[in-house]
């Protein structure tokens, strides 16, 4: 089946090389281009020093567009952080938050990005208050749908109601493929082993995960108190029973780490993508470990990409490597991981 799905890499993926000083912003763009991808996603606060000042500078922007031209890259998505608790004694007022969102929309547009990623913690009225401006600067707002959140859920319904009520074309979703994990990433399991986890406890956690996948995850509710919503979600998905079993099996800190972290992954039916395709502006193709044979051990890439193809998606699938955080005691190679992941995406898209 022919498909117009485009590929991109989020520079988030190269964070370990950037942290070590092995790659700078241009180095990340160069590596991105080398994989054969055409899109680039940026976290301005990660790789643009003295954020947001340089983006206001014409010379900086000229250099940015020169680099994009040099490496044949198209801006896909700008990841914004609404720092609404920038002061420790209060949360920013609604007006202040809307102004911050407008700032990010403007900055994204100045760098050529058609979409900004906003986070689940962004209050609904901040999004609603920014829609007119988003239309004015022609930059869409995409809400990241990151585990434990999911589409076709009470949480997503709240946003659908807003979309329908306002008729906006400037707000939609950015699914993160961490919501399509069939397994717990092997790099996490191996890290737990290095830290002394027992095979018995790992099996309890893996079995519990397999059960959640088989039964279907109980979905999270809409609540601005994210800590509370998350805890209710975990309990509804059998966290207590699993933790008790791990404890009974003599689980230590490494086993507990593995058990707790298992709740940061989830499995949604890929049909959710097809059902919501009109509201999907961009996609974080989250991944954890792609082996030499181009198989991702946690995210069901072929199955999920198939759903995108069926839905007629024409946006970007943007590689977002997150396995590095489990390899920092032994060494990370994001460059090779991104190369493999792009190849896995290409095969799935073109097959």
């Amino acid at each position, binding site marked *: 089946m022919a498909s117009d799905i485009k590929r991109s890499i989020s520079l988030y993926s190269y964070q370990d090389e*950037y942290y070590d000083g092995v790659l700078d912003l241009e180095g990340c763009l160069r590596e991105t281009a080398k994989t054969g991808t055409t899109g680039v996603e940026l*976290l301005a606060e990660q790789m643009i020093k003295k954020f947001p000042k340089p983006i206001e500078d014409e010379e900086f922007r000229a250099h940015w567009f020169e680099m994009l031209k040099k490496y044949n890259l198209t801006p896909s998505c700008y990841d914004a952080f609404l720092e609404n608790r920038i*002061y420790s004694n209060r949360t920013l007022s609604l007006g202040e938050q809307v102004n911050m969102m407008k700032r990010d929309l403007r900055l994204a547009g100045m760098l050529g990005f058609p979409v900004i990623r906003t986070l689940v913690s*962004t209050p609904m009225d901040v999004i609603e208050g920014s829609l007119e401006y988003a239309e004015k600067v022609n930059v869409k707002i995409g809400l990241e749908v990151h585990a434990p959140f999911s589409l076709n859920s009470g949480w997503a319904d709240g946003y659908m109601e807003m979309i329908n009520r306002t008729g906006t074309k400037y707000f939609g979703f950015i699914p993160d493929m961490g919501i399509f994990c069939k397994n717990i990433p092997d790099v996490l399991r191996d890290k737990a082993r290095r830290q002394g986890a027992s095979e018995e406890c790992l099996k309890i956690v893996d079995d519990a995960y397999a059960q959640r996948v088989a039964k279907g995850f109980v979905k999270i509710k809409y609540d601005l108190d994210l*800590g509370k919503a998350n805890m209710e979600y975990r309990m509804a998905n059998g966290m207590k029973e699993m933790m008790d079993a791990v404890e009974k099996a003599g689980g230590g800190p490494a086993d507990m780490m593995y058990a707790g972290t298992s709740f940061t992954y989830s499995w949604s039916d890929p049909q959710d993508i097809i059902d919501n395709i009109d509201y999907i502006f961009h996609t974080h193709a989250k991944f954890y470990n792609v082996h030499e044979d181009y198989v991702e051990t946690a995210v069901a890439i072929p199955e999920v990409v198939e759903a995108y193809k069926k839905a007629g998606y024409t946006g970007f699938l943007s590689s977002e490597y997150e396995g590095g955080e489990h390899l*920092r*005691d032994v060494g*990370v190679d994001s460059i090779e991981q991104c190369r493999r992941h792009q190849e896995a995406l290409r095969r799935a898209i073109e097959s």
Partner: protein
Amino acid sequence: MAARQIYNPDGFKNIAEDGKVTGFQFQFKAQYYRGITLSILHNISVNVDGEDFPREDISITVNGETFTLDQALTVVDSDYRWEFGEFAAITVKKEGGLAAGKHHIKSVQLIVPSYMPFPIEAVCETDFVIE
């Protein structure tokens, strides 16, 4: 490939003012994936060889400016962010500084990104030598 480096191995030293040793200094990188406005850095605790140091005796230097931890809570200027991948220098008051020889440090970074339901508590430990 090697494990991630958190501390600058060349950053450990005693600090002198007017010929008197008043404390010690070390440098490390924020254990988070983006640069931060200093105001979301809520604490840095320091323990060397089992000794804790009071919060008011700890300050942070980024881009040539030094702030106490309380002052850092109100720093939102974009010139004074703790940039991703860059060392910040942490200065701790201690009369006479640290003795020459081997030491062990445990320092915890408390970073509070607005979107996270729980703060980041990054425990950073290493052995080091004061010449």
